[in-house]
């Protein structure tokens, strides 16, 4: 009797998760896959086949955008890590008490407003009549107004800015758990700052680094708003192509195929990243 009850409780608790998994993840993806392998041969006539995937590989614009999105997302991830690590180290190891909490909160504050508003903020800074352009004219560095928006650098700035919090949070958590006496022991045994970073701090922070990188990479790869707004019509971000296929061209079949390719890409790159860093998904995300 009692075990029946506890079983019932277990399934009741499990049901929201199962519902979520089945209705929101598995079913849509099955539907999407079904759509992606149906080719339109006439009005309301479809055949099963991988033609939509063939279109992708035969059209250079499509796979080049795909590769460009992947490479820029990786670059964003690396840049975010390089910027986020010193910030996280400073917060976790060099600050104490209230200063630490304050700094951590200050990293959070920008995320209280929506991503859209934050991106418009960058547009105000970077546009031709914006703050940066005016400032440089005022100081005499440039003669006329310069457009800083609508290029790859602007996209990168936006992507790093949007995702850096998701790098800092796991890094601060793992670095916080690093015992200060390990660093001191490293110095005591004759280590230099660099060798301690390489042999003690980074190995310890590796789960945080990898989980931060996975999150930042996925966020950048799947970002739509920032590349479109800061990159303009030349942004050529793969999510933009998917949007076009679904909404502008009404070509759901090709759009679905693109969606699946993006999923395959992110899974492959995360898998490779885990293999390269010799970490497991449970070790990094499961903490």
């Amino acid at each position: 009797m009692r075990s029946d009850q506890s079983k019932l409780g277990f399934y009741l608790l499990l049901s929201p998760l199962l519902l979520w998994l089945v209705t929101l993840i598995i079913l849509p993806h099955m539907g999407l896959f079904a759509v992606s392998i149906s080719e339109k041969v006439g009005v309301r006539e479809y055949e099963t086949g991988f033609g939509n995937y063939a279109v992708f590989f035969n059209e250079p614009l499509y796979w080049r955008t795909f590769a460009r999105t992947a490479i820029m997302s990786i670059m964003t991830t690396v840049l975010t890590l390089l910027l986020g690590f010193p910030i996280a180290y400073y917060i976790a190891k060099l600050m104490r008490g209230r200063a630490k909490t304050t700094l951590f909160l200050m990293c959070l504050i920008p995320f209280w407003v929506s991503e859209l508003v934050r991106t418009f903020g960058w547009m105000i800074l970077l546009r031709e009549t914006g703050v940066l352009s005016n400032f440089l004219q005022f100081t005499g560095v440039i003669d006329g107004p310069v457009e800083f928006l609508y290029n790859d650098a602007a996209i990168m700035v936006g992507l790093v800015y949007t995702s850096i919090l998701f790098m800092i949070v796991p890094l601060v958590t793992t670095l916080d758990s690093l015992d200060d006496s390990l660093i001191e022991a490293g110095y005591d045994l004759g280590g230099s700052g660099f060798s301690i970073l390489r042999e003690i701090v980074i190995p310890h922070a590796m789960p945080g680094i990898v989980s931060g990188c996975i999150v930042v990479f996925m966020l950048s790869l799947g970002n739509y708003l920032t590349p479109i707004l800061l990159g303009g019509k030349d942004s050529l971000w793969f999510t933009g192509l998917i949007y076009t296929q679904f909404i502008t061209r009404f070509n759901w079949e090709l759009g679905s195929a693109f969606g699946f390719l993006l999923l395959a890409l992110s899974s492959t790159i995360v898998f490779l990243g885990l293999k390269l860093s010799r970490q497991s998904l449970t070790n990094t995300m499961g903490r």
Partner: protein
Amino acid sequence: MTSTADLVCRDLTKDFTDFRAVDHVNFEVPNGSFFSILGPSGCGKTTLLRMIAGFQFPTSGDLLIKGKSMIGVGPNKRPVSMVFQHLALFPMMNIGKNVGFGLRQRGVAEAEIKTRVGRILERVGLPGIQDRSVDQLSGGQKQRVAIARCMVLEPDVLLLDEPLGALDLKLREHMKIELKTLQAEFNTTFVYITHDQSEALVMSDNIAVMNNGRFDQIGTAEELYYEPSNAFVAGFVGDANRFDGKVVGVDGQIVSIVTDGGAEMRGKTTAGVPAMGQRAQIFVRPEAIALLKDPAQTADHMNTGEWIVDSVLFNGANSLVILRHPKSGETIHATLPQTGTFLGLSKGQSVHTSWAPEQARCFATEGQ
């Protein structure tokens, strides 16, 4: 003396914003000796050790290792190694890599590191554990690995920051002896800090008792125990009964006081004779008190009295009896003799005590 001293501190002082942690400390540690710094928590001993290691810099004074001043020298450039309180073994490396860490930093060749790591692990009694990970070791093994990791660098001075604190009692007793043996074997100068007087007494050649940032006394274990230089040392090192009272008579070095409860007792003073009427304290070791069944036929000056047994704390050879003075209500601890004479002693019985004034120490109460 200076030429053979591995570690010399001269007027070493460390100020923090609102207090002075280390106050004009002077000492020398001779080559190859085991030096302990003993003090209660918060007395500044950790700050002192961290200054020797180089993690903190003194406000004033000088610190010499092998005759060279260490002021302005970073912790990674000093010929000292430190065994941390929680050992600080690197969990991200195996034991071999842990022990070889310091040698790698010095750029020693890989093959040479391997032989030296193997040799040092053998010397601490853990041969062939290079490939194990840190959490596969027991507490005592970790301890020895931590010492090996330091000793492989052949430091001039090895600093130990209460490394036995995290171990359970039995292992701690065992490690005390082992540390002393290791020190004798390596013949390296050890500087050991602890708040546990028994660790300091058992292992050290010399002990410094530290209180409020100052060294109250430096001496061998016997000197500290039998000839404490002030009331703090007398109370902190070893067990002692303490009585507060007023001086009522002085006869050479023997001072008589009347305690606040009204009992009169005598003790020897070595640190300056207090004036009549001044407040003073008398310290008596439990083992200095002789228990008698009948009133003592004693010579003059002996402290004698009749006490009521309050409780018997049986602990094998370390058994104690707590006695209460029938008039003043003061209590003393006395060692229970293991001769069988007092077998069956129980609460409420009365016993007679006697101790020689020479075995009690009298100090004028400070702050007057």
